């Protein structure tokens, strides 16, 4: 994964900073609560939500079960439609491929539409090292890039910044990258959006190379799908001569028809809208192979592994690959609300980050070994997940790996990892616990969902992980509320 996040402190240490920052906590609280309530209303509109959820889960499971076949089919379809498919086993290879493609165009500037995969591989840094300027064009990404900052939320990467801070960043930094912010810029969101429009428009109009990710790729037709709101995606996908899409291999779905599920579940789950303002679907260079002047005349698809096949090899952990990055799990998570996105030390924050990052990167570093402990196992994330990823189950499974060691696949090779040194894992667990215990109110939201979470029956935590369970069966959190249970646990320990 990206070097950006290397050397991160373990989750509890990183989270402590956020917990102490009142501005950040107020921003996070406001944002996550607003979106979570809206989402619940958007979901309630569909009487068949649970059936759509089951269907979405099954489509992704089926796609993953035959991932080899679907990727080969996708490659054929994209190639037949005039695109070129590249395969990248890891971040370095993907960065080399993309850098080479950009250099070959002769241009030294690219416009980018928000893509978690390119953040994951640290593409912007690789491009910069090759003398290529990469401009993020999503408003939040622009705020992050101009502020020399890191994203903290999947959907709203600048969720940790309020309007006054954004105004200051625009005023100070826009001029160094291109068109400066208007004189006397205020902090009304409308004015700030207008400043971004003016700043980025000159970049869109002259752009010759665009870089994107994709939300879905359709194996049978070779169709790529990008959901967005602002129109920066459409700009990057249609105006440049060359389009390069870097997409994780798990984004493939078998059929065009499968999109009817995700077109209903993704917007409602992520932005709480019936439909997001813009969705673009394209297949290679289109029916005229790029001759009609509609869209790019060259299209490259870079299929990225970078730990995904290792994740696929884990029979419990592989369900994380179903993720459609809606971010609903972040918005309901009591730990995320308090700790913020940065504490997760990865482009994938929140509950999904806690299960995805340690799998994509292995649990070798302090941050990755502590991530499986960054949860109360309240189960709210599972309840809202539109593809029914049982995040608590994976967390317990990963804790077991950290604490006990066991078989994992790393770089395609099956190895046994040794248990983390006892005190390391235990310390991570206890510090994460303290973080939550010191503010019991943070757990209330999760508590309401507990009744449902109780049907989850993950295994008991042996070894140092017992710090969390003290020998009790985790899922049986039974008669008493989670908070009472916690309080008593702490009492016993104090």
């Amino acid at each position, binding site marked *: 994964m990206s070097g950006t996040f290397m050397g991160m402190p373990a989750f509890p240490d990183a989270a402590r900073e956020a917990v102490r920052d009142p501005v950040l906590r107020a*921003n996070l609280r406001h944002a996550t609560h607003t979106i979570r309530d809206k989402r619940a209303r958007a979901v309630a509109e569909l*009487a068949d939500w649970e059936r759509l959820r089951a269907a979405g889960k099954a489509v992704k499971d089926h796609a993953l079960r035959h991932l080899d076949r679907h990727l080969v089919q996708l490659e054929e379809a994209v190639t037949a439609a005039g695109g070129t498919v590249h395969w990248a086993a890891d971040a370095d290879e993907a960065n080399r491929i993309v850098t080479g493609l950009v250099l070959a165009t002769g241009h030294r500037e690219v416009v980018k539409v928000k893509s978690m995969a390119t953040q994951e591989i640290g593409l912007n840094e690789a491009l910069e090292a090759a003398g290529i300027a990469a401009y993020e064009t999503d408003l939040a990404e622009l705020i992050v890039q101009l502020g020399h900052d890191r994203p903290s939320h999947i959907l709203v990467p600048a969720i940790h910044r309020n309007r006054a801070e954004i105004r200051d960043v625009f005023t100070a930094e826009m001029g160094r990258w291109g068109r400066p912010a208007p004189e006397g810029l205020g902090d009304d969101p409308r004015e700030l959006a207008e400043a971004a429009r003016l700043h980025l428009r000159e970049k869109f109009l002259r752009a010759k190379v665009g870089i994107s990710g994709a939300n879905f790729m359709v194996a049978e037709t070779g169709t790529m799908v990008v959901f967005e*709101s602002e*129109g920066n995606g459409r*700009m990057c996908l249609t105006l440049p001569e060359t389009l390069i899409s870097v997409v994780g291999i798990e984004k493939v779905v078998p059929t065009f028809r499968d999109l*009817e599920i995700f077109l209903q579940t993704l917007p409602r789950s992520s932005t709480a809208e019936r439909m997001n303002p813009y969705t673009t679907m*394209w297949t290679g260079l289109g029916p005229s192979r790029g001759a009609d002047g509609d869209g790019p005349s060259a299209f490259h698809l870079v299929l990225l592994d970078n730990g995904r096949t290792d994740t696929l090899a884990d029979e419990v952990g592989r369900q994380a690959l179903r993720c459609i990055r809606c971010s609903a799990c972040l918005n309901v998570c009591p730990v995320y609300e308090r700790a913020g996105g940065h504490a997760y030390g990865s482009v994938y924050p929140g509950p999904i980050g806690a299960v995805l990052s340690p799998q994509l990167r292995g649990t070798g570093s302090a941050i990755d070994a502590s991530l499986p402990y960054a949860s109360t196992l309240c189960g709210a994330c599972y309840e809202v997940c539109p593809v029914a990823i049982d995040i608590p189950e994976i967390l317990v499974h990963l804790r077991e790996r950290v604490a006990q060691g066991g078989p994992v696949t790393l770089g395609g090779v099956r190895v046994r990892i040794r248990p983390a040194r006892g005190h390391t894992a235990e310390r991570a667990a206890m510090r994460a616990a303290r973080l939550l215990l010191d503010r019991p109110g943070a757990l209330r939201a999760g508590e309401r969902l507990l009744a449902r979470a109780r049907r989850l029956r993950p295994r008991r935590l042996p070894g140092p992980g017992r710090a969390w369970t003290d020998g009790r069966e985790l899922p049986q959190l039974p008669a008493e509320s989670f908070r009472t249970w916690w309080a008593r646990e702490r009492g016993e320990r104090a």
Partner: protein
Amino acid sequence: MSSRDRILGRIRRAVADGGPDPAVPRDYLRVHGVRTPAETADLLAAHLAEYRARVHRADGDGIAPLLARLLAERGARTVLVPSGLPPRWLAATAVTRVEDRPGANPYELDAVDSVVTGCALAIAETGTIVLDGGPGQGRRRITLIPDHHVCVVRVPEQVVDSVPQALPLLDPRRPLTWISGPSATSDIELDRVEGVHGPRTLEVILLSGPAE
């Protein structure tokens, strides 16, 4: 070994244990509610309006004067016209027409005030219009760069109720643009702001009666 072979090999080893392979249950609803065509059009109008598109209605005689009025109110001096747009629609306006040409550069398009198009279909339940580059719709960039987009939807024939009804009518080989209201962002404190990079004003005309 190529990375392609390496990745495919890793996948085959990773799923060698079998793993879940359920049949996809398609028992979700094809449509959420029973509606007459008129009710479906009303729902489309309501949902478009909720996302701040301006919705108008016209019949065969009313479309030309309506378009003339909308362009005049906007103060448009130039309007982009995709090939295949029924000429009758713009018969009542003197605004300068700009053709959608393959060689047009983005700067030229940026100087145009408005664009008028048809669409491939519209989806009532989600308040969505889909463009597929067919006649009267033009290249994707013409509905992207100008700040004012007027889109004509023929009712009832171009309106479906739901997303599952829409997909079989669309050809994935064509470039598809799904539009639900004007561009928007909620990136600043989750306050929704309409209009960032795409057209900040989206007007939709629900046109009943004969198309030509």
